[in-house]
């Protein structure tokens, strides 16, 4: 089980560790700077941290296994935009070909050491084969005509936030886009196909509700030992797939099916966790009580987990990368927009409060 958690916040990267007295914040890096996401690569122990310096742009740093210091490495960059190209997004706004956020960082397969995938706003997907020293844009996805249907959801511009490298074949990967549906490649990124069929966006014209190209999956996860099975926390509810993400069906949860984060148990695809908010236009816990919902039967029923979580006047929102599960599937961690961090050691039955006073949390990851 993992005893260390990387917590990315608006004002620094914090490490939460398990000691004799429980979990506590042990270290801080990049204090004062906006850390938006990390990756701990289990294959070689390398840590990666994505920063957003605002005026000075997006940067990526790497820390080798066992080291305390970070080194700035190359940030994925967009190619030169062809002169005169009228490249518009789904809202009809010009696309700025510049990395504006690193929104997904995932390790490649076990058989490809050093391979890292990176999803960005405004929708570019990148791959490194040398631990982030150099990057190639997956231009086959970027140049798909359907990319011009992608549009911003909560953000102004579209972005790739979820990357699932298939445990059966490293050549198969799926990416989820807000808002652009789910795309799959089976040949290492040479060709791509849309695969968000069955999802529904119910807040527009009814005849367009099922258009896969404008779906807004907030987060997508794949079960490691049952890789045909996926969960998506979508803008309009919860969706699951049991057929290799070829089709999706809706699942209802109480007190709400709205949220951002989702975690699936690595050994049992029927077990998944969500953190509900009221709804789109009220992104706070229902009745001011922070809860986690868990299904153990593939979404037929949900249990509302609240032991150890604030139940009065709690307005914590858990962003899409703010909920994480460890390798064995016993421990969960989550961090909130109001600086709270909680850890569960019993699959969510109970939670230990680690801190209430961190800056807004963007992402948590077991390391």
């Amino acid at each position, binding site marked *: 089980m993992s005893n260390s958690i990387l917590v990315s916040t*608006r004002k620094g990267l914090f490490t939460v560790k398990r000691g004799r007295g429980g979990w506590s914040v042990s270290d801080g890096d990049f204090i004062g700077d906006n850390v938006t996401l990390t990756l701990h690569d289990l294959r070689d122990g390398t840590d990666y941290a994505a920063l957003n*310096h*605002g*005026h*000075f*742009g997006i*940067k990526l740093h790497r820390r080798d296994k066992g080291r305390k210091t970070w080194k*700035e490495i190359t*940030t994925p*960059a*967009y*190619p*030169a*935009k062809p002169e005169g190209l009228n490249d518009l997004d789904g809202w009809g706004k010009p696309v*700025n*070909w*510049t*990395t504006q956020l690193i929104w997904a960082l995932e390790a490649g397969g076990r058989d490809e050491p050093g391979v890292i995938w990176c999803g960005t706003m405004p929708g570019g997907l990148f791959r490194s084969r040398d631990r982030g020293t150099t990057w190639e844009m997956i231009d086959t996805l970027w140049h798909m005509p359907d990319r011009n249907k992608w549009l911003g959801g909560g953000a102004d511009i579209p972005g790739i936030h979820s990357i699932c490298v298939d445990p059966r074949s490293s050549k198969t990967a799926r990416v989820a886009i807000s808002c652009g549906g789910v795309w799959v490649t089976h040949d290492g990124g040479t060709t791509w196909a849309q695969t968000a069929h069955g999802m529904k966006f119910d807040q527009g014209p009814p005849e367009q509700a099922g258009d896969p190209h404008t779906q807004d999956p907030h987060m997508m996860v794949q079960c490691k030992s049952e890789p045909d099975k996926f969960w998506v926390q979508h803008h309009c509810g919860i969706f699951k797939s049991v057929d290799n993400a070829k089709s999706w069906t809706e699942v209802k949860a109480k007190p709400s099916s709205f949220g951002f984060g989702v975690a699936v148990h690595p050994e049992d695809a029927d077990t998944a966790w969500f953190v509900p908010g009221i709804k789109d236009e009220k992104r706070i816990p229902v009745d001011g009580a922070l809860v986690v919902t868990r299904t153990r039967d593939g979404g037929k029923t949900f249990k509302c987990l609240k032991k150890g979580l604030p139940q009065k006047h709690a307005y914590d929102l858990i962003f899409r990368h703010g909920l994480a599960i460890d390798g064995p599937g016993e421990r969960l961690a989550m961090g909130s927009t109001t600086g709270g961090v909680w850890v569960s050691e019993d699959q969510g039955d109970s939670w230990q409060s680690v801190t209430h006073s961190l800056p807004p949390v963007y992402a948590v990851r077991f390391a």
Partner: protein
Amino acid sequence: MARVSFTSNLRRHVDCPVVEAKGQTVREVLNSVFESNDRLRTYILDDQAALRKHMTILVDGKRVSDLAGLSDPVLPKSEVYVLQALSGG
């Protein structure tokens, strides 16, 4: 040669003391600076080599007008300031 200065905010991330640099346009002056400090490039310019959205450059007290092409003229004794917009949060 023009004299190029950077803010303390930027110097917090990249070592960039005041430097003298050759060039007849802002683009040429910046390229001259980047020759000896390549890491600085991506902090000032975006992926399309345009000035980053929330950055500005003053040449002899006047804000440059060509934010994408950086073609504004620079004189041999010009004072160039690379600045970020001030915003809180």
